[in-house]
């Protein structure tokens, strides 16, 4: 089980102090949070890509490369890379370049983005969201896997004799997760290719996540990548912890009540019941997170959102301390004990290289 954090990179006012960090501060904080995540023993840090205020996260690979240079072990991922409005040629090149710099500690999660105006700013139309995700990803796969690509599609200028450079590290493209909240087409896409499926999970009721994951698992098996329970599933989660659970509730409430996504709506208590949000002690977070497995099955990656809604850096770093000290070791142990042997762990660059060599050897033997 890979355990980590994902960040959207929003610049949000701290509702308790009225202070809004500068973009510079927010970007530096993101780096500090990623370094801390490695220090406390997390496996993954995933960054967002956004092209509008109040976000300061338009160029994830730049930030990821900078973090890679200052870390040793943690896997760098995205949440999400915009497959609709980003030229798939740039995605192929940027992430291959990053693979080389980070020695393979890279994967990515593709998402469509739901901000209407971003599409025309990049010459696209949000009504083409799904077709863009499908065509662009089909091209991206070829760019990573074929030396010379001749290609023609609907949404991009044709390519004749094009080679994306650099080539993926060790000839193995980064592992891809497909993120979606409510589009069955994306679960279908992930299943078709045998890629990972990431259910954002945090803003929606669990019944919905269960259905999306079940669809993906069923179709993963249908497309012959293994049994349904061998499909590669990731989940989001949202936590705020203090040693004493009432302290966590009291401290987080003003951030919850004013949060950009769900603020001024349901109460903290209601939202905690309706969604995976857990505000309480590390033990409560451990129990709640283990419960996710009951409706999505054994899964491979759990990412927590901890740095949003205007929470100050100091608080976020304390959350990481609690994650690293109490939550992650317990979850790692429990999830590993529960996972049957035939269910794989999340692919890494090393495991993908091994699998690639095995396939090549088998091919040579035949």
């Amino acid at each position, binding site marked *: 089980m890979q355990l980590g954090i994902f960040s959207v990179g929003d610049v949000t006012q701290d509702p308790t102090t009225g202070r809004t960090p500068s973009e510079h501060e927010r970007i530096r904080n993101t780096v500090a949070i990623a370094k801390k995540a490695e220090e406390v023993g997390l496996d993954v840090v995933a960054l967002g890509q956004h092209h509008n205020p109040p976000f300061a996260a338009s160029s994830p690979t730049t930030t990821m490369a900078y973090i890679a240079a200052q870390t040793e072990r943690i896997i760098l991922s995205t949440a999400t890379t915009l497959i609709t409005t980003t030229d798939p040629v740039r995605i192929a090149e940027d992430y291959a370049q990053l693979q080389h710099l980070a020695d393979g500690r890279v994967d990515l999660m593709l998402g469509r983005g739901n901000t209407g105006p971003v599409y025309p700013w990049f010459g696209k139309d949000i009504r083409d969201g799904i077709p863009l995700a499908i065509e662009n990803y089909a091209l991206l796969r070829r760019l990573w896997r074929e030396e010379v690509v001749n290609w023609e599609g609907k949404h991009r200028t044709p390519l004749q004799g094009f080679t994306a450079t650099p080539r993926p590290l060790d000839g193995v493209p980064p592992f891809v997760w497909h993120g979606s909240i409510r589009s069955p087409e994306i679960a279908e896409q992930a299943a078709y290719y045998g890629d990972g499926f990431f259910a954002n999970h945090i803003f929606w009721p669990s019944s919905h996540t269960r259905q999306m994951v079940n669809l993906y698992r069923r179709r993963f098996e249908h497309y012959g990548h293994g049994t349904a329970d061998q499909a590669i599933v990731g989940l989001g989660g949202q936590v705020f912890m203090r040693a004493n659970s009432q302290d966590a509730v009291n401290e987080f409430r003003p951030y919850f009540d004013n949060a950009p996504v769900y603020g001024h709506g*349901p109460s903290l208590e209601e939202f905690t019941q309706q969604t995976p949000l857990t505000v309480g002690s590390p033990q409560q977070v451990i129990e709640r997170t283990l419960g996710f497995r009951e409706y999505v099955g054994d899964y491979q990656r759990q990412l927590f959102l901890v740095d949003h809604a205007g929470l100050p850096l100091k608080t976020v770093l304390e959350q990481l301390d609690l994650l690293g000290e109490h939550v992650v070791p317990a979850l790692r142990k429990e999830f590993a004990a529960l996972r049957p042997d035939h269910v794989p762990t999340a692919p890494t660059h090393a495991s993908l290289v091994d699998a690639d060599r095995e396939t090549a050897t088998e091919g040579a033997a035949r």
Partner: protein
Amino acid sequence: MTTRIAVVSAGLSVPSSSRLLADQLSSATAAALRSAGHPVEVDMIELRPLAHGLADHLLTGFPSGELAEALLRVRQADALIVVTPVFAASYSGLFKTFFDVLETGALEGTPVLLAATAGTARHSLVLEHALRPLFAHLKAVPVPTAVFAASEDFGATSDGRLAARVERAAHELVSLLAGPVLRGQVGGAERHGRPESGQVVRRGALPAPDEEFGDPTPFEDLLAGR
């Protein structure tokens, strides 16, 4: 097969004249269906207790608890009776919000009886100027007679014209139902998805939300842009 009528009333006071009108309309509709030999089930949905849930849905993007159930019941109804008080020359915000959060296509082809209440009869064209276009947009099928009740229509001196309009609208709704829906030729699933040819489908046969991803479009079709 039992015909399911969902009644949506947006009255705010208790008791409200919208609810009174809703009761008259649903009783008349149920009576007309029963006298034609069709068992009927009337499902009254008052929006007042759902007001918080509706505001939360606008902010969070998903319905919770009782609201989710109410939306499902409307989605699965064979016909709808809707009643709103007139606020600022139109339907109330609460009434509109309920139909704002109802998922796209949920009312496609559904017969609807439109009704409104107000303190004065001067607002009666709200039904034609606000409600009818709204339900046209939702691709529902409103019956020709929309029923408006001003306060005076509930009075002891009422000449009975409200009761006559209620009767006429109820019979129009029943005759819409008695066409294709009761014959089992048009139903919710057909309006929404891919019916087997000749299969008898009706609104109640819509997949539960639990099975909404039961029939994905194969990826080959998506790849081919189909």
